[in-house]
């Protein structure tokens, strides 16, 4: 609508115009003519009023030619209303810790979210939840995500085709987001590693550093000697970030010249002196090391010669030393302990054990670090601790054994340490572990002396373990876990804290119980 002339007249003011034209120029003028003749201001106002009603009454809706195609039909049935209600409150933040579990159940049951929950589900804050949300979005959720830029993450999760590449793979590879392109490459690596590498090589020069970094990581899938030439070249990449991820890959190609270079460097440091360890730290930094990713300057508190040694030993498969010495890992570690630089050597081995996932080494190394942490506690010093990293390479059963041992050993169980490893346990604890956890927890709760002056519940590992336990105890233990938890009768803030913590624990378990009941209906 053009601004009618009389609006301009009113905007400027009738005082400033000799002959103010106040006609609207619309058919409504004939009606307006019936209004009583008055001073010009009043006439203009009354006309504007008549015009307003006239315009509003004559309003037409604008035309919208194109609408997006409607969402396709669903392949999955929707979950029940009761499940939807539980999910809704979790998406709103209540019992949020259970959201991943609930989404997992939903996916396992081959159900999808109801439409009304989609906007909240698509808006999950943590990216860690996105892989769990994606499979339960249904056709509608994927359709919906196209309209909101904040939901474009959905595109990174392509529909899972069993191993094979979809028809549009090449288009996605050329036009997709970085996440999508990496997913395509990873899949192609499984089917045809050489072809994936040649796709990568064909775009390598024109991509930006942050994209190159993501793309080159896809070579981890099906890594082999055929990738060596490309990776060796990548050691000279323009970007430090890209260069930094290459050595770890080359080291794992045992036939590579990189691996040979590293092994000969390591052999110059650690030698077999008639069945004994002979450790000879590098005297100076060799500039050729730089290209192979060895960092010259150590972290504070580490001597530089030990630092160089640690990195070189860390790039050589630990099995190499078993062959060199004809000894088992535990024996080698015991021998290393005696050396002045033994701790650094063991740290190097620990790095190598992770890089090469050297299973025979993981447990003895972890035990060594565990012993160190006990010593540290008594001496009060803090040095590096690699238990966190090593435990991630352990099979679930072994992790449970380790944590259970710490939990049951009264000399250890009051230290906050074991509790921090609970998150490394499998999502569902074994019933054996769970029973022993609950039993020991009961003893602990019964024996609590709460109103001690220096007793802080937050530094009690048992208190802190309840949150993790509530989400991971297996259903078989629910009855035992939901039996009442009698606290010593007393009036203290510590008592209040424990009371609330136990209540939160049982609440979470009850909701899990309800979830399971709903899914098993």
């Amino acid at each position, binding site marked *: 609508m053009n*601004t009618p002339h*009389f*609006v*301009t007249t*009113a*905007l*400027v*003011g*009738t*005082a*400033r115009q000799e002959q103010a034209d106040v006609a609207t120029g619309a058919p409504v003028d004939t009606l307006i003519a019936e*209004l009583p003749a008055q*001073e010009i*201001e*009043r006439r*203009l*106002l*009354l*006309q*504007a*009023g*008549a*015009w*307003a*009603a006239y*315009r*509003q*009454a*004559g*309003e*037409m*809706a*604008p*035309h*919208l*030619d194109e*609408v*997006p*195609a*409607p*969402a396709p039909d669903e392949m999955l049935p929707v979950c029940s209303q*009761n499940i939807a209600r*539980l999910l809704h*409150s979790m998406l709103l933040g*209540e019992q949020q810790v259970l959201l991943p579990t609930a989404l997992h159940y939903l996916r396992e049951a081959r159900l999808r979210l109801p*439409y*009304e929950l*989609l*906007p909240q589900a698509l808006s999950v804050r943590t990216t860690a939840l996105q892989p769990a949300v994606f499979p339960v979005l249904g056709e*509608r*959720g994927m*359709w*919906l995500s196209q*309209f*909101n*830029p904040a939901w474009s993450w959905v595109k990174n999760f392509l529909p899972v085709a069993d191993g094979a590449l979809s028809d549009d793979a090449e288009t996605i590879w050329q036009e997709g987001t970085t996440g999508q392109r990496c997913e395509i490459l990873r899949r192609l690596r499984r089917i045809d590693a050489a072809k994936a590498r040649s796709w990568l090589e064909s775009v390598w020069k024109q991509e930006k550093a942050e994209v190159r970094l993501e793309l080159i990581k896809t070579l981890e899938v099906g890594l082999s000697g055929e990738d060596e030439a490309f990776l060796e070249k990548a050691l000279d990449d323009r970007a430090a970030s890209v260069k930094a991820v290459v050595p770890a890959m080359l080291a794992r190609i045992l036939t590579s010249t990189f691996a040979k270079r590293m092994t000969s460097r390591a052999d110059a440091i650690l030698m077999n002196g008639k069945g004994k360890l002979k450790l000879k730290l590098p005297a100076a930094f060799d500039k050729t090391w730089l290209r192979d990713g060895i960092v010259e300057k150590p972290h504070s508190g580490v001597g530089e010669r030990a630092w160089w040694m640690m990195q070189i030993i860390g790039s050589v498969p630990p099995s190499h030393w078993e062959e060199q010495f004809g000894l088992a890992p535990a024996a080698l570690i015991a021998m290393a302990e005696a050396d002045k630089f033994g701790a650094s050597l063991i740290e190097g081995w620990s790095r190598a054990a992770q890089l090469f996932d050297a299973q025979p080494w993981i447990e003895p190394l972890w035990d060594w670090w565990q012993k160190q942490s006990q010593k540290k506690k008594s001496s009060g010093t803090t040095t590096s601790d690699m238990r966190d990293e090593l435990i991630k390479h352990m099979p679930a059963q072994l992790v449970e054994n380790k944590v259970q041992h710490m939990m049951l050993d009264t000399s250890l169980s009051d230290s906050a340490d074991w509790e921090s490893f609970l998150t490394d346990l499998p999502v569902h604890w074994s019933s054996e572990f769970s029973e022993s956890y609950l039993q020991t927890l009961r003893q602990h709760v019964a024996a609590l002396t709460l109103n001690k002056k220096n007793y802080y519940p937050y530094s009690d590992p048992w208190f802190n373990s309840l949150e993790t336990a509530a989400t991971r105890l297996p259903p078989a233990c629910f009855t035992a876990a939901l039996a009442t938890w009698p606290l010593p009768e007393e009036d203290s803030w510590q008592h209040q804290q424990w009371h609330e913590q136990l209540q939160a624990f049982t*609440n979470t378990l*009850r*909701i899990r119980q*309800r979830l399971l009941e709903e899914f098993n209906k």
Partner: protein
Amino acid sequence: MPALPALAKSWATREAGRTSVKIPSALWGECQGSALYQVKVDLSTLSTHCSCPSRKFPCKHSLGLLLLAANEPSSLPIASEPPAWVATWLAKRQGAVERKQSKETQPSGEAAQSSHVSQLKRAEKRQALVLKGLDSLDLWLNDLVRNGLASVQTQPASFWESKAAQMVDAQAPGIAARLRIMSGIPNASRDWPAKLLEQLGRLALLTHAYRRLEQLHAPLQEDVRQLIGWTLSQEEVAARGEMVSDDWLVLGQTLNDEEKVRVQRTWLYGMQTRRRALLLQFSAAGAPFPEIYPLGSRQQADLLFWPGTYPQRARLVERRGEFAPLRDPLPGEESIDAFLAGVAAALACQPWIERFLCVLRGVIPVCANGGDAWYARDNRGDALPLAKGEYWQMLALSGGSPIDLAAEWNGEALLPIGIMAQGAYFLQGRTLQ
């Protein structure tokens, strides 16, 4: 609010020893809180009462009971007779309702006579005050146009507020409200001069109409008096308004904060009469609204409409029977064109109507510019803009297919209050009680 699932749990566990029972018209139970509380719900009005000391209304115990009844109806036994503590309360409520009704219908003889005389006197006095106020308003309006609307851009908020306050003093609060709304127009949009002039023009038309009130036909007189701010007493509404019985769909509500008062607009649609009704409630200083309407439900009820040419405002006089959730396709206009034609017809009778209930069948919500602009589009391709906001849930429910939409139309944009999609009704917008 406490964790409701946990609350529902505490109901269920208590159930073994205590009772929570329903008969078709009421719901009650005992809840173990800090003490044992007695909770009762009148199901025809959703009024609740609880013996707990909470000042929140409804309290968590009532909500818990309602939630339990909604989620697990089978867990509640059905009783033939309510216990004494429930029966007494229900009887008291019934008594209150009847007293209220008898007060409305029969003002007693002599007292009414004398109050009528003093009422007339008061009205005369007020009439003089209003007319004087309108005179000063008209002069002020003329000044605005003489000096040019451009001059208001630099005026402080008090420019509008002081005039509005004068209108309140002149007992014309309807005018005051219009002035307060106008204060937000300058510079708020590109075409603000036209918008402001239209509002000023409508105001001028209103003062013009009020001065020649006797010449208007009776229903329009009612409209104009109400627009100026003459409120009708309950007796006047009962005497001059219209009672309409129907199966009413309670489609939804909007909330607005206007000058320290929160205004709740609840929109109803009559299945048989196709009448639209607006139930207004006001709350000051965060007090709860007196009535709770079962949004998203239908209920047989008698509504009393305020008199006027295009009666919209109404009061719920009597509810008949229980309410049922909305499930069927909404009745309403098949096209935007038909809806706008209805609006035009209404404006022809009464040009000051500001809000209309819009019920459109089979429209598609359309999201443009990544969520910056939203439309409802009918099957002819006509589209009305939705009020500023986000409508992701509506889009999710529609999936690009037609839905039925209930919304409030203010002449510029639709403010959705509810949608019917896949046989279920979903309330939209702010619907807090």
